[in-house]
């Protein structure tokens, strides 16, 4: 397959040669390059991985290279530190390396990148739910230097999260981007936090609240998936399949509405979470590791985390499921220095730097060794929850409809519609074909 493309490409290049003479040297080198790519891919298994990277670095950094890297605002200092180490490591191949850092939250990386992929950073961090759309838009470079090494050093789940159609498109960075339950140890016992009902009852009795952002497809999924309903990507990779409108979908919706009406419950957006933690309203809440520091600050020694509780569905206790989440580092194929960018992405996600990331930013590593060495309450909760967590693979039409369904539940079903109608409407929107 690759050969065919490269042959076609060589042909195209030859044709274009007539038009623009400047590209002669690249054009002639194409076929060899393609075969070289294959041979390196083959030899990776045999040769030590260091050799490949060294060769690559020698080729990439023989001349001056400027790279731009986007990461979260909070990670900027860490990224600067890693970049400096990178420059130190690869700076002796003759070329000068410059790395510019930009701030771009991982959650919204896709929005910025897709507006104009050619203007986006060479290397950028993003959350794994955006992988599909980024690959479809041709905004991610397949990992071609040391893919096998990347696959072997990271947890299988994180590798899956970075893979589309069997090809690895990104470097796993963290493995804790999912959600779980934070709670105040002095308020709840370990038995309490096993059931949402118990938690809400206790909280309501004390005038406190348990929070979760129900008006958000990401969290809402928890209830439906917990009840065994299905949500996933269709075979075409664009549309969504969803059966939330089958039994017991309507009952789940009723259960969610009831939970939202419970005086011990409050639906909070992520940005409202911290404020309510600090003012003492919350005694527990569903959120992710990015709020771990806030929770630890608010509750001090009483800070604890655990897997999600069970909720009551038709009188039975059902374990809440969740989306597992990963942060990934992607390389922009439009980068002028793709090879150098790959080396940087690889460096940022190696064992040493993921350990550093855990130390400085408390983000759970995707690297198997680094993960084994890391430990924190939040990370333990992520691992406990991972049994009930699924990879996040949904099409673009999921979010708006699910958000609306959640919002209806939070607002107590203001139009008083039948719960079956609610899920039917939502599923119609979720599964609607993406406009062609």
């Amino acid at each position, binding site marked *: 397959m690759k050969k065919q493309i490269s042959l076609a490409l060589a042909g195209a290049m030859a044709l274009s040669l007539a038009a623009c003479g400047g590209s002669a040297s690249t054009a002639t080198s194409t076929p060899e390059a393609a075969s*070289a790519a294959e041979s390196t891919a083959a030899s990776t298994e045999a040769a030590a991985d260091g050799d490949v990277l060294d060769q*690559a670095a020698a080729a990439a950094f023989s001349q001056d290279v400027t790279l731009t890297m986007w990461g979260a605002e909070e990670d900027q200092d860490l990224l600067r530190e890693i970049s400096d180490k990178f420059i130190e490591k690869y700076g002796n191949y003759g070329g000068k390396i410059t790395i510019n850092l930009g701030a771009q939250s991982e959650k919204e990386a896709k929005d910025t990148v897709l507006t104009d992929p050619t203007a986006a950073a060479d290397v950028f961090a993003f959350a794994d739910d955006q992988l599909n759309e980024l690959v479809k838009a041709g905004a991610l*470079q397949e990992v071609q230097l040391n893919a096998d090494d990347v696959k072997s050093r990271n947890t299988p789940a994180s590798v899956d999260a970075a893979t589309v159609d069997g090809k690895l498109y990104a470097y796993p960075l963290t493995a804790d981007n999912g959600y779980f339950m934070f709670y105040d140890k002095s308020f709840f016992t370990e038995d309490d936090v096993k059931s949402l009902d118990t938690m809400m009852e206790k909280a309501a009795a004390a005038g406190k609240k348990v929070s979760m952002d129900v008006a958000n497809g990401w969290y809402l999924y928890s209830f439906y998936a917990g009840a065994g309903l299905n949500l996933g990507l269709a075979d075409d990779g664009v549309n969504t399949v969803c059966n939330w409108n089958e039994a017991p979908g309507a009952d789940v919706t009723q259960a969610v509405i009831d939970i939202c009406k419970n005086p011990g419950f409050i639906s909070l957006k992520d940005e*409202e979470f911290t404020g309510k933690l600090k003012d003492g309203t919350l005694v527990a809440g569903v959120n992710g590791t990015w709020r771990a520091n806030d929770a630890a600050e608010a509750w001090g020694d009483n800070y604890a985390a655990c897997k999600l509780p069970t909720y009551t569905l038709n009188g039975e206790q059902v374990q809440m499921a969740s989306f597992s989440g990963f942060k990934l580092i992607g390389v922009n194929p439009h980068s002028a220095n793709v*090879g150098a960018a790959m080396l940087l992405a690889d460096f940022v996600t190696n064992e040493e730097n993921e350990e550093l990331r855990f130390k400085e930013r408390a983000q759970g590593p995707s690297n198997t060794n680094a993960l084994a060495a890391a430990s924190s309450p939040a990370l333990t909760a992520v691992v406990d929850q991972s049994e009930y967590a699924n990879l996040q693979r949904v099409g*673009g039409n999921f979010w708006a409809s699910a958000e609306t369904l959640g919002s209806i539940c939070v607002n*107590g079903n203001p139009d008083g519609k039948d719960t079956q109608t609610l899920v039917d409407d939502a599923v*119609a929107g979720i599964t609607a074909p*993406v406009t062609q």
Partner: protein
Amino acid sequence: MPGEKNFFQTFGKAFVKGDIFTKVSFLVWGLGYIGHGQLMKALLVTLVEGLGLYFLAFYGAPNLAKFGTLGTVKMEMVFDVTTMKNVVNNYDNSFEILLMSMISFVVIAALIAAAMMVVTSNYQLQKIRAAGKKTNSFLQDINVYLNEKFYVTLLTLPVLGVVVFTIVPLFILIAVAFTNYDQQHMPPNDLFTWVGLTNFFTLFGGGGMTSTFGYSFAKVLTWTLVWAFFATFTTFFGGILLAMFINDQKTKCPKLWRTLFMVTIAVPQFVTLLLVRNFFSNNGIFNTMMANAGVTDFLHNIGLLDKGLSYIPFLTQPSWAMFTIIMINIWIGVPYQMLISTGVLMNIPADMIEAARIDGANPVQMFFRIKLPYLLSVQGPSLVTDFVRNVNNFNVIYLLTQDVFVTNNQQLAQSNAKEIDLLVTWLFRLTQEYYNYKMAAVLGIMVFIVCAVFTVVCFHFINKKEATFS
């Protein structure tokens, strides 16, 4: 004016009656001027023509050739391990083709128009020479551009700016409405192509059973018009009333009061709007204050607020949000209008007021018989433009509701609209979050049509009224 000929007639006559230099100057602009003894000018115009033709030949033509299909060759990339770079084929970028073609069209139109002007001007020179008079020297020609043709000097740069940064982009976006440019067809990786009127059918309810664009369009358009109406008139009358209240002789220290209200103008709008959004958020400070003051419970009791809600959904439920947005807009817009009304009211001819006072008019009569008609006659046209501006009032709605308001209506959600969306905020989110450029472009054209119809009708009405007055 019967004697006046239009541009084309003048050109036709010049071309037919012109001598060989005049005729040739249509193709090579400089030749005519050389023939008519104006070397400097010949050099300049040829240079301009040369630049234009150079652009067309090297940038315009290759893209114009693909204008019919908007490109056929998809991007392919191969990673080259020896150079560590990606090798890219000579692909077509549909957007670039569209963009360059549009610029080329503008350049071609400009070149043709300029060529016609050159011929006309050469014919003038020819006539002058035929009459045995001397033609202008280069310096004299320059002088003309500071005198009779001063407007040319004044307008060239601004018009160029508007063409490049407003008109060409508009042409492109209008063209996009007839293509399938969306997330599935995004350059540079993918190609998009012409689809005719499909997108318009989608907007008006066609385009497959799952499309809810027609439904959403009707809803959003209605709210847009309602909003524009309220936003325009509440701030207009609010501003007038406040201005009169402050400027009344019985009010002490009018300047102090005016300054107090104007503080809100001094803080940039996006700061105040983002601030107010957090002020009114569901779990925000204002809701806490309302709950403490017992207002939330009161609303529960009189049934204005659903029992299940522990807060007032100022910006999160449709009817509340609409109310809050209009209120916040009053808060923002009234100080401006007060400032303007203050100025206009001061300009009311003193004798008119005096005469009314002598006739024994009371303040209310004074307001409805003199001040209001005067204000309306002065500000009538600007009310129309204000209305149009409010139809396009992106900032207020976007900054207040982005990331905050979630629609409870699945049909709206399916077409990515919200109850409180204006057409412009809807189209903005379509481009920024869903990359649905084709539908955004269609909506843009709809906004234009709405505004154009409204403006034409209003000005027709205003002009008619003025005509009956005078």
